[in-house]
């Protein structure tokens, strides 16, 4: 996985390779994983939000009910 194992060898090469992160050449896979995480986040949080809003809407609280929940700590 390591792209660089010896800095002296790396920097004294005729042409110094710029990319030094682990797994050079696997960028495509990393991007796919990143896209799945991004889209997945929207799906998961949308489900949570929808349930939360639905449940709260069913309770039909009035505009001032929240005041009884104000804490003093």
């Amino acid at each position: 996985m390591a792209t660089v194992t010896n800095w002296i060898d790396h920097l004294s090469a005729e042409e110094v390779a710029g990319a030094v992160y682990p797994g050079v050449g696997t960028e495509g896979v990393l991007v796919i994983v990143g896209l799945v995480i991004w889209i997945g986040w929207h799906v998961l949080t949308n489900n949570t939000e929808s349930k939360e809003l639905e449940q709260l809407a069913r309770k039909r609280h009035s505009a001032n009910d929240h005041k009884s929940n104000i804490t003093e700590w």
Partner: protein
Amino acid sequence: MTDELGALSTIFTEFYYWITVVLMFLIHVGFCMYEVGASRYKHHQHTLMKNTMLIPLVTVTWFFFGWWIYWAFPTGPGLAPSIMNESAALITDDSAFSAKWYVPTSDLMAVNLGDHISGVFWAAFLLFSWTAASIVSGAVIERITTFAFGILAIAIGSVFWTIDAAWGWHFDGWMLKILGYHDAYASGVIHAIAGGFALGILIVLGPRIGKFSSSGEPRNIGPRNPWLVTIGLFLIYTGFWGFYAACNIPIFNLGPEYGMEGVTYFTATNIYVTPTTLSGITMNFLMSLSGGLLAGYWIAKGDPFWTYSSGLAGIICASAGNDLYHPIQSMIIAMIGVMVAYKLHYWVERKFKIDDAVGAVAVHGYAGVAGLIICGFVLNGYPSSGYSVGSMWVGTDYAPINPLGMFIGAIIMFVVLGLIPGWIIAKVLHGMGKLRIPREVEIAGLDYNLLEAARDDEKAVSSSTR
């Protein structure tokens, strides 16, 4: 890097942009404080999280495609040929500033010993993206779903603003060539577009419950916490210093860049690679802030909320030409922008029943549009680029700055890339039933469950101490 002077120049530039990113972070801190201060107690925490979560959403999408769009779209495509490859197609070839290098799989989109600039430049632009999305965030508080806002934030932050930046905020942009567009510190490319986008959403989203009486008279739902609003706006001012610096290239040799044989001329430049000075723009920044505050205090009769916002609106209005204006011109333009923004805000509110909770459409949108139009008159005849001077509509050379071109540019920013996309996406989300929270939740407060849980926790803790 093996040459010491070249290395110093590169690492200075790298560090310069890095500092601007840190400073611009304060804009977002300020927006968060401002929004929470403007929202009602029962919505505080959701308001805060909505604005906070745009940070990761816009960042990852900016990495995946936003940055690529900026480098691919300067030609339109199809509107004016690039000066790099003389083609009007998307710029994806092997030329130096091609989008090819900025796909997410590129090895330049990572730690790369051969490139010290791309990452910090990417980040500076990203912070502009956050700002664009955050401007929209304030307008829609207390009734939009976090899901919908996330989608809209990505649309403005990683798609539409970056298209406008490619068109009008890029040395190779077609709007410079065909229209003579000039917008050095983003009156249009950030503020007008974000204001227009917010207005497009607001038309579909509708006002907060209770904002208008049954006869249509608007009611004031003023800031709940003026001190948080104050600190928030001061932080936005502070972050704006970074914004201004980030719009510049700190050191550039324009002689060889413009093809002038034997000429060496090092200077700071704006994003169009035309000369300005950090010193001069600092004067203009402060004078336009002052003009905005003076006019805001007067027109709003000392109302703190509008006075602070007017400081911002003043800077925004003068920003298009603050690379070249005289400081007193900046101040006067700022004052005009504030008057336009303030009057239009209340006129639109009454006439169209638009509930812009923090005045974002006015402060950013109307002041930004006014700034672009004024810039067309004040800088009429200046070159929009140093590379060449041509005439309007041709597209192979750069048109000079002119009132008509700037007016069309303002419409492109506010309406074409702002209002229309915002309205369409909001319509789609509304059609899916995902745009607005249920009426019952809006009345109860988005934080109702959180507050209830906190109360139960408090009871549990106090009972254990008896």
